[in-house]
């Protein structure tokens, strides 16, 4: 890096999207100021940096904001690259396409039903969402075999794009297990992902960034309460 780089990341510990962005800067070994936002009282900086969504994460690089977690991860990967700097996306265009495909799958197909477990208003709905989530994780179990080619992570030897996309949800997957006794990833049903999840959690970047699961459990209870209240007031 030539000139002085100023990096600030606005986020909250339990947000999987903030986790992705945070882990990306940690993996790159660049210094970044992490600002914890109070979502019930969003800062002026957040509101002015992300006027479209007013959400975390936002990465502010030399005063310019970048929004949307996967956009941030790709930006960080492109800006901080070179000899000795770990890559998050592969260099080969076809492998990049595969990585983008699976990250999109996590966000478009897996995350909505996973979140649906927490936001469910009835037990029946919860069971439905759990069933859908268990179905949605199966292609990822297969994808792991294809992408990792026998190595530790989706990207190979080190954490990459799809690892961040799915790994950022592990805290919530564990929170859901504690809250509802629903196992999305298990050694019996998804052995590859189960082993991968352990390795992900053991990584230096995860250890630095991931919050305690209980924080997610507490946040989950808040979300549940908010969802019930919203439904009751209709």
């Amino acid at each position, binding site marked *: 890096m030539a000139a002085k780089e100023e990096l600030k990341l606005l986020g909250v510990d339990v947000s999987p999207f903030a986790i992705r962005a945070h882990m990306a800067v940690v993996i790159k070994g660049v210094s970044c100021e992490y600002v914890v936002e109070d979502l019930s009282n969003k800062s002026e900086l957040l509101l002015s940096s992300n006027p*479209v969504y007013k959400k975390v994460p936002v990465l502010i*690089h030399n005063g*310019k904001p*970048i*929004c*949307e977690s*996967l*956009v*941030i991860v*790709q*930006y960080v990967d*492109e*800006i901080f690259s070179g000899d000795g700097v770990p890559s998050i996306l592969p260099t080969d*265009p*076809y492998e*990049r*396409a595969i990585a*983008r*495909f699976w990250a*999109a*799958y996590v966000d478009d197909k897996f995350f909505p039903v996973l979140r649906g477990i927490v936001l469910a208003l009835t037990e029946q709905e919860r069971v439905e969402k759990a069933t859908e989530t268990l179905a949605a994780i199966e*292609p990822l179990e297969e994808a792991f075999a294809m992408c990792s080619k026998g190595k530790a992570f989706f990207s190979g030897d080190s954490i990459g794009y799809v690892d961040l996309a799915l790994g950022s949800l592990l805290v919530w997957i564990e929170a859901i297990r504690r809250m509802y006794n629903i196992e999305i990833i298990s050694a019996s049903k998804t052995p590859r992902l189960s082993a991968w999840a352990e390795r992900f959690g053991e990584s230096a970047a995860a250890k630095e960034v991931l919050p305690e699961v209980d924080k997610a459990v507490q946040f989950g209870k808040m979300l549940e309460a908010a969802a019930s209240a919203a439904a009751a007031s209709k």
Partner: protein
Amino acid sequence: MAGSNGDLKLLGHKGSPFVARVKLALGLKGISYDYVEEDIFGQKSDLLLRSNPVHKAVPVLIHNGKPICESQVIVQYIDEVFVGTGPSLLPADPYDRALARFWVAYIDDKLGASFDRALRAKTDEERNEAIKQTFAAAEALEGGLKECSKGKNFFGGDNAGYVDIIVGSVVPWVKVISVLAGAELFDPAKMPGMVAWVDRFCELDVAKAVLQDPKILLEQAKMLMAKNSAVASNN
């Protein structure tokens, strides 16, 4: 020349804006390919099912036998693998690339999603709510255009690029929504930039070649809406 680009096949469907994106991308870069029209509502081909087992949807680009799925992924792939052939679709500057990816995500996550809900709504109430959300989502594009174009003709600057392709692919559907809602989605009073952009984009040769006739799409939309309402009322 097809030979130097390898073997390129696009599996698509004439009504799909996602397929239109890939055609626009290949067209802008001047890359030739084989096109296969899939019977998406009837009998999907073995090739499609094998190439996209996860979603079983179009578009699928098959390059030298290897499939690439999801329109945003395909367009970026085309730009990266055919670098040097025709214009670049994504900006050169990483920050501008981040802006482009942001707006592309916005179009599909906000605009596209609410319009999809409008088409699939089971009740008039649901449909009107979804249309309202679509209109609210469209407004931000005026700012997006200013931010990306920096005063030039296209989101991509002097030439059409990634964001132009994504927004351009839904232009025929914008016209459909406007007819269904009885109001222009890109209100000339609130979004003069976008209105002018639509005219410029539609003048491009590639747009003339690829974009569908809104009248045909309108019929398709009416059929889809009727089907969803009928299903609801039969329950």
